[in-house]
């Protein structure tokens, strides 16, 4: 192991900004990063051990304790639960003889929980040694554990067939399915690679920016910042080197459209990054992909290699003198907050993914202090189509405020979960008809946990920056779902787990609000608890990044739109109740000292 660590460190030239890559390599090789590894890394990279440890401790998929020869990470998202995760989880526990969070005494199997892994349309799903297993049942769980005990390799453990499209590619061989249900300009498979590059190199960078601005394309990650403007800022910023980042960290529970683009249209994405690079004169691109999609690594590396061969990347691209650009892949290691652009940059620099204070914005001082553009996968793909067909063409889709199309990741209680590309301005009601719902729909979570939970009286609202802004995650809940217990509590747990802990508002308040919610659910709440949640929730707006600012949204939007669910659970006879239970509070001490609770 010492040799492997040494070789890995040398592979990355003793560069501490590549700490993530070094840690990922060691974690994958030996299932954990030992204290000896930490000492060795610290010495070789000229860092302190705590600096190495703080990066390790930040990410979900790094562990300083062994995680088993086979590490099973079972998704615990809302939709996984809706699709029968409990049975699967119980079967894993029973067959392996351990509970979640443990490793078998022989070190063979580790069972862990993990947040949404981008497979919401094929849940319950798990990651086992970086490979994805979808649509799990208790039967499959038993089979998998049996196969592990029989010493089978991961590849031998898949069921009969692989997924659709490039999921069958020899370098992917995954059971994941794309579930593309509706295509539009971005997902259109009839596209010739390299044409956009060929076109833009005959234009001035300013002309490209002006066309993108004219298209009114806005960032597809959710925040909706105008793409052309972002590029212009970066182009005008001063720095001896500039960077293009593609944000493929999609961690918002319920989103999986970037995974589908990475699988089916990686060449389109690479071309989009090259277009961005040409306009801001960036020489290096970093494709930051969430760890959960590591199963695509070899495939994507091959495609990058192919792009270099064809001179879509590399030196003097397509014959344009001085247009030099190449892309490297950076994997994350399991942290939702890294989807925030400055946290993503921090992470790519080998550090904890904590959002930075702004200003300066990344377009001025980003990766390694240099001007950096961070764009979402879908934004970069849209750019290619804008450049091929023009801004006017692009504006013919969608609304005046929200031009173009949006890829939606739709999951939950519907007949056809998957990826749908629709024009902005699409109503929630039409969306429900499009996916085919069974029975009455009680609510739709628009934009993931950080978005809003809306009820049927708002289904006439439309998707777009002017009404319901969304990064594309839509989760449908049928009438039988218990919104508070099954949805809101799960989302709050997610935010509590994913807070980076930097701002006290986001570190503390979600816990406090969840306790209030639990108090209400246990029947000990009063009306004031509801109003307290509403008042206190506002303080989260003081947090540094979007994660903290929206961390109360699951509770706040459900109170706003489903107040009756809360009101039916609070005590009406009392004005005030702290919810304190003396019997419960003395239970442990009584057990420890062996006495009766004579209170």
């Amino acid at each position: 192991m010492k040799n492997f660590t040494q070789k890995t460190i040398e592979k990355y030239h003793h560069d501490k900004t590549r700490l993530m890559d070094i840690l990922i390599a060691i974690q994958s090789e030996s299932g954990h990063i030992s204290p000896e590894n930490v000492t060795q890394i610290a010495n070789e990279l000229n860092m302190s051990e705590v600096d190495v440890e703080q990066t390790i401790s930040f990410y979900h998929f790094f562990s300083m304790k062994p995680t088993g020869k086979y590490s099973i990470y079972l998704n615990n998202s809302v939709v996984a639960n809706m699709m029968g995760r409990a049975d699967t989880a119980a079967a894993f526990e029973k067959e392996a003889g351990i509970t979640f969070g443990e490793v078998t005494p022989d070190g063979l199997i580790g069972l862990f929980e993990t947040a949404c892994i981008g497979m919401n349309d094929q849940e319950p799903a798990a990651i086992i040694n970086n490979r994805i297993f979808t649509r799990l049942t208790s039967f499959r769980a038993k089979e998998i554990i049996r196969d592990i005990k029989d010493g089978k390799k991961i590849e031998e453990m898949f069921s009969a067939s692989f997924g659709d499209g490039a999921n069958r590619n020899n370098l992917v061989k995954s059971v994941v399915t794309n579930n593309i249900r509706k295509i539009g300009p971005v997902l259109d498979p009839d596209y010739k690679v390299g044409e956009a590059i060929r076109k833009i190199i005959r234009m001035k960078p300013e002309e490209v920016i002006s066309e993108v601005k004219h298209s009114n394309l806005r960032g597809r990650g959710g925040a909706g910042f105008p793409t052309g403007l972002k590029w212009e800022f970066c182009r005008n910023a001063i720095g001896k080197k500039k960077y293009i980042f593609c944000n493929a960290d999609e961690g918002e529970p319920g989103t999986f459209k970037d995974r589908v683009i990475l699988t089916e249209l990686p060449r389109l994405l690479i071309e989009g990054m090259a277009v961005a690079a040409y306009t801001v004169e960036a020489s290096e691109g970093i494709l930051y992909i969430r760890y959960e999609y590591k199963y695509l690594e070899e495939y994507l590396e091959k495609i990058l290699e192919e792009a270099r061969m064809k001179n879509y990347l590399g030196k003097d691209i397509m014959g344009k003198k001085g247009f030099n650009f190449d892309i490297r892949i950076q994997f994350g290691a399991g942290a939702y907050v890294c989807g925030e652009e400055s946290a993503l940059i921090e992470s790519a620099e080998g550090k904890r993914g904590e959002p930075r204070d702004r200003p300066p914005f990344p377009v001025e001082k980003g990766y390694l202090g240099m001007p950096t553009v961070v764009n979402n996968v879908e934004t970069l793909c849209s750019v290619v189509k804008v450049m091929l067909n023009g801004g006017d063409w692009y504006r013919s889709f969608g609304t005046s405020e929200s031009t173009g199309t949006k890829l939606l990741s739709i999951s939950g209680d519907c007949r056809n979960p998957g990826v749908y590309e629709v024009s902005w301005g699409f109503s929630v009601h039409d969306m429900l008809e499009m996916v085919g719902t069974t029975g009455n729909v009680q609510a739709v979570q628009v934009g993931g946990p950080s978005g809003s939970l809306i009820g049927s009286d708002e289904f006439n609202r439309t998707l777009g920056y002017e009404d319901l802004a969304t990064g594309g995650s839509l989760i449908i809940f049928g009438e039988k779902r218990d919104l508070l217990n099954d949805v809101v509590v799960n989302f709050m747990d997610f935010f509590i787990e994913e807070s980076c802990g930097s701002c006290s508002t986001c570190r503390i308040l979600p816990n406090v609000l969840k306790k209030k919610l639990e108090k209400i659910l246990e029947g000990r709440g009063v009306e004031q608890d509801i109003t307290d949640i509403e008042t206190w929730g506002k303080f989260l707006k003081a947090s540094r990044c979007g994660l903290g600012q929206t961390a109360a949204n699951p509770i706040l939007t459900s109170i706003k739109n489903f107040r009756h669910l809360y009101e039916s659970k609070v005590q009406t006879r009392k004005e005030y109740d702290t919810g304190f239970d003396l019997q419960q509070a003395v239970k442990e001490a009584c057990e420890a000292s062996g006495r009766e609770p004579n209170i």
Partner: protein
Amino acid sequence: MSKPVVATTSLAGCFGCHMSLLDIDERILDLIELVEFNKSPINDIKKFTKKCDIGLIEGGCCNSENVHVLQDFREHCQILISVGECAIMGGLPAMRNGIPIKECLEEAYINGPTVKNNTEKIIPNDPEIPIMLDKVYPCHEVVKMDYHLPGCPPRADLIWEALVALITGNEMKLPYHVVKFD
């Protein structure tokens, strides 16, 4: 008009807040003109003899007796005030909150380096002894508290101003030096 009645108690505290109350110096003479004291360690009245207007609570709740006393205060006092950090947040005693109470008791009575002669490994269990709670609770998590006076202890001036404001019905003066804590 009869004088407002004040009661005070120290729960899981160190009596520092009561010391701070005494720190109002000669104003204590004004205070006894202004109010009448009922149950309080200051006059050693052990049980409520009537309904009170104001209850000053020092300390949080670490055992069953603290809870009973606090609930008794809530029943007898119209206005309850958390005085000091322990009442407001649990304070120093709450440092044990990260450790299960079973481990705390075992360390104190069985495994600790200063434990001698407890060969039968007994954790005190006489029915007369109050029972420890699983953690130290701030007062407002047990009963409704009306006001909070921060500080460790709150300055005498702050306690004095608060009491006078409550009794006279005037707005409380809160100059910077009274509410800054470092």
